[in-house]
Structures are given as C-alpha cells and as structure tokens.
C-alpha cells in the first residue's frame, strides 16, 4: 500500500528506476522508525541508545578535559564538585571526560565486532542452509565445536594469547558469535528456500549467489535484526567484562570495564569512581535489550 502511494506521488521517479528505488528505500527506513512509536518499550530503548550514540559522537566537545589529563589538585577530594561534575578517578582524571570517551570506545568496537560476526555468520549459515549436503555437515560440525566451549573461557584464552587490543577483541567476538549467527541464518534459509519466489528465480536461471543475496536475505531480515540488536547488548557486556578482567583495551585509554576494575578496591572510600561507569554500561545494555524486545513485539504484530 505504501509503495503504491510513493509511486503515485512521484511521477518523475517512474522515469528513472534508480531514483524510485532510493526514494522507496528512504521511505521504508522512515516508516520503520515510525513503527517504533507503537512500542513504548522500543522508545525508551532507542532513547537510551541514542543518548550514548550522541555522547560518543560529541565526546571531544562534551568532555571538559582530556580523557587522560590528570588534575593533581583534585586528588585531595576526588568526589563530584563544580570543577569536576562527576568527580575524578583515583589518578585525578575527570569522570565526565572518561565516560564520554569510553562511550566512543564501546560504540566503535561493539558495532564493528557485531558487523564482522554477522558478515561471517550469515555467509556460513546461508551457504550451509542453501547448499545442504556435505557443506552443511562440515559447517555445522565446525560451529558445534566452537559452540561447545564455555563462552567466557574462549574469550579468556583468545585474548590472553592474542594480547589485549581493540582489533583482537573484534576478532574474538567474531570467532565466538559467528557460529551462533550462522545457526539462526541456516534455520531461516531452510525455511525460505522452498518458497515459490526462490523456485521462480531458480527457473529463471539465477545463480545461487543472486538467490541467496536478493531473494532469501531480505526476507530473513526481521529475526536477524532483532538478534543483531540483542547481540549489540551482549557484546557491550562482553567488552565491559573483558575490560574488567584486565583483558580490555590497554591503559590509559578509557574503557568502562577497565575503569571499574581500577577502582573497586576503593569502593568503601570513593564509591562514585566505580558506580558511574557501571551505571553507564548498564543503561546502554538496557537500551539495546529494550529496543530488541520492542522490535520483536512490532515484528510479531505484522
């Protein structure tokens, strides 16, 4: 119905199919965002996520000080004050600045990690589900081996061997999550590959790659988007946990988990140093999970 409306309202678009495609795509995105209004849970979730995205983008302008700048005068009393709104940490570094730059770290590493995991996981799952046979057996066998590991142990072994860095966190998250994504994609393809439009494409003589990317993938997007949103939450927790265990980004760069690790020993004297980064990471993950829940609710209603 909506597509009809766009076609009618833009007569010149019909002349150039490229512009029609782009216009319809943009309209779809706007419509999808509009759909979020239907779920209060999704609104709260996207609000929390959006808040941290804005903070991450504006980190250089929002932070009153450099993330690693040390204010020796604050060391006598690092609690929140007019100079340092959220106080400073045990080394006299401004909490607001470190939290903002920490948001930047998480919101750069997590999406890249989830994206690469999706690229590899979806490829694995779609190839396995579409081709079947020994390819499916082999891919499923490799996935089963990786999935049989307790997740956290796999992270500890990989990161402690590779060394802690943003790139290695991305590699480890991809390695650990791709098999799970592959399983979901495989199940979806199994269901979709017997549909009429896939048969029609086969009869037209389309190549398997075309069928997978153009016919199957767009129709499997619903559950995959919800899962990706959940995975953003999990990955945020993972990055925080790795930082907390001393396997995160190397110091002194701010990273929420690492900030907690450095200051929990001082909880009794200065609880604010650990509390603020914990509130930050919890609110971001709650945002992602509420958004995922709202999206699932909306997608089930259709």
């Amino acid at each position, binding site marked *: 119905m909506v597509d009809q409306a766009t076609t009618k309202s833009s007569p010149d678009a019909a002349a150039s199919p490229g512009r029609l495609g782009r216009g319809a795509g943009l309209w779809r995105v706007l419509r999808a965002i509009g759909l979020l209004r239907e779920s209060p849970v999704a609104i709260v979730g996207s609000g929390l996520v959006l808040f941290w995205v804005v903070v991450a983008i504006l980190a250089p302008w929002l932070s009153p000080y450099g993330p690693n700048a040390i204010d020796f005068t604050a060391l006598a009393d690092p609690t929140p004050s007019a100079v340092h709104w959220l106080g400073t940490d045990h080394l006299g570094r401004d909490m607001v600045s470190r939290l903002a730059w920490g948001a930047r770290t998480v919101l750069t590493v997590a999406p890249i990690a989830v994206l690469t995991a999706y690229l590899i996981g979806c490829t694995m799952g779609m190839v396995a589900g579409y081709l079947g046979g020994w390819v499916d057996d082999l891919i499923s066998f490799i996935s089963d*081996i990786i999935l049989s590991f307790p997740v956290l142990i796999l992270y500890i072994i990989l990161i*402690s061997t590779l060394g802690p860095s943003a790139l290695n966190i991305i590699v480890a998250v991809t390695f650990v999550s791709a098999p799970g994504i592959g399983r979901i994609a495989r199940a979806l393809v199994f269901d979709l590959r017997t549909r009429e439009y896939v048969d029609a494409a086969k009869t037209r003589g389309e190549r398997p790659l075309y069928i997978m990317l153009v016919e199957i993938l767009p129709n499997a997007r619903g559950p995959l988007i919800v899962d990706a949103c959940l995975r953003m939450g999990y990955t945020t927790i993972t990055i925080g946990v790795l930082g907390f*265990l001393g396997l995160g980004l190397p110091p002194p760069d701010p990273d929420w988990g690492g900030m907690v690790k450095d200051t929990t020993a001082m909880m009794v004297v200065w609880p604010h140093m650990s509390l603020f980064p914990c509130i930050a990471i919890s609110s971001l993950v709650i945002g992602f999970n509420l958004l995922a829940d709202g999206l699932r609710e909306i997608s089930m209603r259709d």
Partner: protein
Amino acid sequence: MPMFIVKRLGQMVLTMVIASFLVFAVMEFSPGNVASKTLGPYASDESKEILFKKLKLDDPLIVRYGRWIGVLFGVIEDPLADPALNLGFHDPRGHHYFGNFGYSTLYKAPVNDILWDRLGNTGILAGIAFIIIVPLSMVFGVLSGMREGSAMDRGLSLTGITLTSIPEFASAVFLMAVFVVVLAWLPGTSPLEATPEWPLASQLVLPVTVLVLYDFGYVARMVRASMVEVMTKDYIRTAVLKGLPYRTVILRHALRNAMITPFTVILLQINWLITGVVVTEVIFAYPGFGRMLLEAALFGDITTVEAATLVALFVAVITRLIGDIGYMYLNPRIRLT
C-alpha cells in the same frame, strides 16, 4: 535409545579431542614461548635451552599434543617432573597415573592439587545459585506467560530484561555500594575463610545474589515463551471451557507441558554457572575455578589453562548430553535415532 547414547558419546569424545587440540594449538603455538613461560621471566637462556630439548618442543604440534594426552592418561611420564631440571616439582601421586594434568607454573604445585579444590568452591557457589534460580525463574515465567500481554506479564518481562542487561560486575558494584558501603551488613570480599566478624554464610550472600540476578531473567524468558505457546493449545481451551478452576488448569495441565522446552535451557545453566562465574569470583576475591583459569591465563600458566579448559569442556558436553536424554524422556513425541 542405547544406540542414540552410544552415538552421542562418540560425538562427545570427538568434540572434546578436537576442541582440546585447538586450545593446545592456540596456547603452544610458539614453542619458544612454552619454555620461557614455564621457567618464568628470570630464567637463563641456557636453562631454557635444556627445557626446550627435554620437552622436545621442536616436534610437530600434533606429536606434542599426543604426548600431552599420553601424560594425561598415565602412559608417559611428565617430562617436567625430572629432578635434573631443578624445577622442584613433586607430585605425591607418582609420575604415572590417570588424570595427570602436569604442574602449574603459577601455583608451583601439581595442577590436581589446585584444580579440584577450586572446582569444589565454585560448585558450592553455583549449586546455591542454581537452587534459587530454577524455582524463581519458573514462578516468574509461569506468572507472566499464563496471560500474555497482561499488566503482570509486561511488568515481569520488563523486570527480567532489565536485570539480565546489567553486567555482573555492575550489579556487584551496586549491591556493594548499598550493603557493604552504606549499610555495612555484608562483607565486600568472600575468601571462604571464616572471620570472627563475617561467618562463611555471610560471605556467600552477595556472590550468589549477583549470579541469580544476572541469570534468572534469561531462564524466566524461556519459561514464559514456552508457557505462552502451551496456553494456546486446544487441551487448555478444553480444560477452561469444561469449567476447571484457573489454578487447576495452570498447575495440572499447562505447567507440566510448559516445562519440556525450558528443561534443556535450565540444565545448560549448570554449565554457565561452573564456567561463567569468573567475573563474580574476581570481584569478590572468591577462590573459585573461574578465577584460577583467569589468573593462569594472565600469568601464562599453560598447563593449568589446558587442564581447566578440558574439565570445563567435559562439564559442557556432559550437561548437553543429559539435557538431550532428559528431553527425550519428557517429550515422548521426539525419538532421536
């Protein structure tokens, strides 16, 4: 049925062999590293050379893996036990015995002396948490799933999502801020050594609470999803229409069927509780299995990490097998061959 179990046991062994080889390969990829990590940072090049020859580190990876398995099964003597190396390693169990995991370079003792105590400690923590998680998540799941979309459903689901979203270290910090810093009701660390001020039981309260808060929401969601599905079935409608009290419908008809699917998920929580509690153990300084693994990995104690991973894999594979068998008994419609 016996065929199925035999087949699954075969798969289990194969998975463990391949997975443990992968860990071995990752940990011992560079042979030079193995010698220097075993001897520590202050060792001379000469002693590293001797150890390198003794461990035959220039052999191919697969041969060295075979030797490690040989030591584990008590067929080969552990080369590190040789007194000529002056490492001071001594194992009262002897040098040839089944389950010889070798020597920990971090704890300067046989891995078997450390590993099982730590696993037992984690078992206490995990056991108490499991006993609380299962009934709590069932009550939450059934109450929210029996009337989908009701105010109670929304409220409970939202609580569950929020609680599972808070990382363990964050909920630990929040709880510590209230109960340790402000109220001073509970100790902030749990070294499992009773002090006059804090008895053992008080040391377990916070770690168990953190585990329960993080995990139960997830299980509750699984129970809820299954409950919602069961409530749409014909036999529930029949039971309601023939005038049974709602309580009876839920307790007699719905609950039993709704527990089939979450059964596997609940069993997998044992697996998660044994190995996923690293964060909780670290923040409360609890002498458990996960913390041992982390310390060993950070120190470069290869033998301990390999041993701990093997044990963890064993727990993971066994719980999955039990889950599958139990699932078959619960659901007579599924007969795997």
